[in-house]
């Protein structure tokens, strides 16, 4: 899968052609809508009330349209002018800001009830010019976001980390800013449908994030788990190996032949 982050900075990559392509693609629309709804589910806002929401990296307003449908009032910011021009053509309801999240969120303290971000924060890990330092930009973003949310405000951001290091980099920057922080991974087995959601909470809230039975805590990857997995693999039989692989493929949504009594059984010797 290609990563636009590796091609050019966002304001250059999302030119008129690319932003039209992005916005008109029904596949992208569908995925963006799904991720926005999932983010809202994680946010766990009171459905009866209208909230003031910030959309970081709003792009052409695909996520904003869902917010409007959910009867929320929102402000969107994005760095790509073409994306915002597309949003303007589509007559979205929210206010649009041409702004770089790495330079901070330009709102005074306690402005927003919540914030979301769909497929945007991984861009912060890029050093696109000689003067931009990812560490500084991440810190600036999370510090100003923390201030702009009211106490107990929540943030859910879906992002595409390039590797494990980026997750650590992002979560540690958020923690330094004062957030309670965690990463929710949906569909962890599927390479294609795997989705990372950064969930942050600024202080205590009456309606905490909807994480099921998980806790808001840091996600430090466990090192010693890898070793035992290797040993398990060395110990398993051929039949177990086949069953494990079939199970994995099933979870990834592939069509897999049904198990029978012949699965993984040794064939009789032939010439």
């Amino acid at each position, binding site marked *: 899968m290609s990563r636009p982050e590796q091609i050019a900075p966002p304001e250059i990559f999302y030119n008129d052609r690319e932003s039209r392509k992005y916005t008109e693609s029904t596949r992208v629309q569908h995925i963006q809508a799904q991720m926005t709804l999932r983010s809202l589910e994680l946010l766990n806002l009171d459905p009866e009330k209208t909230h003031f929401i910030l959309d970081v990296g709003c792009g052409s307003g695909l996520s904003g349209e869902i917010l409007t449908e959910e009867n929320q009032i929102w402000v969107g910011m994005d760095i790509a002018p073409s994306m915002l021009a597309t949003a303007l053509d589509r007559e979205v309801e929210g206010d649009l800001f041409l*702004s770089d999240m790495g*330079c901070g969120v*330009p709102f*005074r303290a306690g402005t927003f009830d919540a914030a979301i971000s769909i497929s945007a924060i991984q861009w912060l890990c890029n050093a696109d010019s000689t*003067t931009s330092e990812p560490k*500084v930009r991440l810190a600036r973003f999370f510090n100003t976001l923390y201030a702009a949310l009211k106490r107990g405000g929540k943030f859910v951001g879906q992002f595409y980390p390039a590797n494990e290091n980026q997750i650590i980099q992002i979560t540690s920057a958020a923690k330094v800013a004062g957030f309670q922080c965690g990463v929710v991974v949906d569909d962890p087995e599927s390479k294609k449908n795997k989705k990372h959601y950064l969930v942050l909470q600024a202080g205590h809230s009456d309606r905490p994030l909807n994480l099921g039975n998980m806790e808001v805590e840091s996600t430090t990857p466990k090192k010693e788990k890898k070793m035992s997995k290797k040993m398990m693999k060395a110990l398993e039989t051929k039949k177990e190996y086949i069953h494990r692989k079939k199970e994995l493929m099933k979870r990834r949504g592939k069509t897999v032949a049904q198990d029978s009594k012949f699965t993984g059984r040794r064939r009789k010797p032939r010439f």
Partner: protein
Amino acid sequence: MKFLTTNFVKCAVKSCDASELSFPLKYEECELQLQEHDFNPEFLISMLPRLNWDAIVQVAADLGNTTLPSTKPEGIEDNEQMLKDLHSLLLETQIINGKMTCRHCGHIYYIKDSIANFLLPPHLANS
């Protein structure tokens, strides 16, 4: 940009963070438009404690409306007429074009086609 947003947006320059002058911004040469929006009293009531009334008065004066009371009126929650007035001011008044100036560093942000440009030049972005 909705009038409501003017009550929250401040200068994006890092060195202005600590300054009280960076909010509210100074609005000049603004072109306004009325855009209808569904009346939602609950939202307004939930926003009331967050509003900075002095800033509302100041920005409204910048935009040529000096009829607002100088202190926050009491009992807005129960007064439907007042809520409606506030609704048309905060949510239906849109700034289409204009200029915002930071009172601390003097940086000018432009609003064009109702999109506010908060991109900073490199010398301000990294200070």
